[in-house]
């Protein structure tokens, strides 16, 4: 299994990561060798094996939906790179 530079570019875009051409080349090589080392995993016969998403016996426990104290709006905005009128400010999304 090997990844081309084009595939790396596609994945990086899905993951919203801007890469330099040098990074694209290096990741193509490194990700390919990681996937090659995982090849033996693909050989295992798992036709009858259920997947494990969690090791816990718990399934979505429920609790009463009661109000409790929470941090203030000012506090939640205090880490924002830009805030205005009690909201997070971002650059335009649409053209």
């Amino acid at each position, binding site marked *: 299994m090997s990844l081309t530079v084009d595939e790396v570019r596609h994945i990086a875009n899905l*993951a919203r990561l801007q890469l330099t051409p040098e990074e694209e080349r290096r990741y193509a090589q*490194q990700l390919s060798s990681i996937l090659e080392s*995982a090849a033996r995993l693909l050989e*295992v016969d*798992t036709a009858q094996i259920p997947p494990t998403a969690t090791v*816990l016996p718990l399934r979505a426990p429920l609790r009463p939906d009661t109000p409790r104290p929470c941090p203030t709006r000012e506090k939640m905005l205090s880490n924002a790179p830009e805030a205005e009128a009690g909201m997070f400010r971002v650059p*335009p999304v649409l053209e």
Partner: protein
Amino acid sequence: MPSLTDISLLEAASALRKGDFSSVELTEACLERIEALEPQIHAFLAQTPDLAISQAKAADQRLQEWRKNTEEPLPLTLGIPVAIKDVLCLEGIPTTCGSLILEDFRPPYSATSVARLIDNGVVILGKTNTDEFAMGSSTENSAYGTTHNPWDLDRVPGGSSGGSAAAVAAHMCFAALGTDTGGSVRQPASFCGITGLKTSYGRVSRYGLIAYGSSLDTVGALTRSAADLLPLFTAMAGHDPLDSTCMPDPVPEINLDDGSLAGIRIGVPKEYFIEGIQDEVETAVRSAVKIFEALGAEIQEVSLPHTDLALPVYYLIAPAEASANLARYDAVRFGPRLKSEKLWDQYLKTRGELFGPEVKRRIMLGTYALSAGYYDAYYGQAQKVRTLIKDDFETVFKDVDLIACPVAPTTAFRIGEHGDDPLAMYLEDIFTLPANLAGVPGMAFPVGFDRNDLPIGMQLNAPHMGEKALFQAVHAYQTQTDWHRRKPDL
């Protein structure tokens, strides 16, 4: 009289009660030691001396009140200086996860594990270094520089909880919190010659632990002995309504007085003694097993046949979960922003420039494993093989109470030794990953030193929620040995 920083946590707790010294004096002793050694070790990303002194004063006040009525219960952690791995939120104090993308982030709330320690009176000295977002085995992936191993400053302390391990090993603090997603408490504990607990998945709340691999992440602790670790475990464990994966089970009462291991069955898995393991590691682990036998345990060889698949399973599942968890770093709500005119470009630029190379590698690996056309072949297949690994443990735990094995194939390696070879670094985790995939607890503890005077660790694993047996067995071993009392020359 030994220096205040050289006594054990339990000795310090007892001396605080007797009034031999105050928590402020104990805290000042730790702060002085940090000041003297931090330039060589770099265990901390943030130091909080003002917070520490104010917490120590409050502890001294509580101790003074308590002396009027000594019948009142008092937590053993009261007034004890500790450090917190920088992936756990501490309200108002910079929490970076070792990443530039969280530079100057000040959490609006504390993690449940941290809040519970604060409720139990600890003194917080600072936040410790970690591989970026806990992705690594050496702290070399921290954006803020590598931590140095107190036993040999040219070597790594292990990782990702390497700052915590180095701080405890260098006697800068009595205990530190760590997290373990693939070995990140146990491997640095092993490399630094201390005791580290990876809790069962679901035993300690993950609320306020900045997520890496959500089905694998656990909060644990590092100390200089199992006896010192117990009060931290007791304080942190137990149900938390803020984490739906935190088990409702009561926290067990653990008594370390009876040191016998009569009737305890310990399995030694043959798959863990493979080619490539350092001779001295195998010899030390096998000698330790003999001591468990002398303590009354029954030893038998067992088999965990899917062990060799743990590495590829982990390095698909953890990156897949990471790629989803790290989507939140979008420069909208927190973290630095590399400005662009369009939101889309801002995402690309900020994430591309501020995530480090290993984090980007894992995000892409995970994104690929989850992407259309590859989901079933990679992520789905890894989840199915995870079932086989979990079943291996369940089968073996029908016959034995504990599993004994090495923590890592070698002792601490040199800084820079693995260069830019991600696979070589991933191989460091082969003996620790299976416990995370199965969700079972493990405790690492020192069992010897190699020819370079570097600590050798081993681990015991127990069934899910079986921490009690780990504490009892490791404590029994530590009553018979003094590896855990060794201190690096600094």
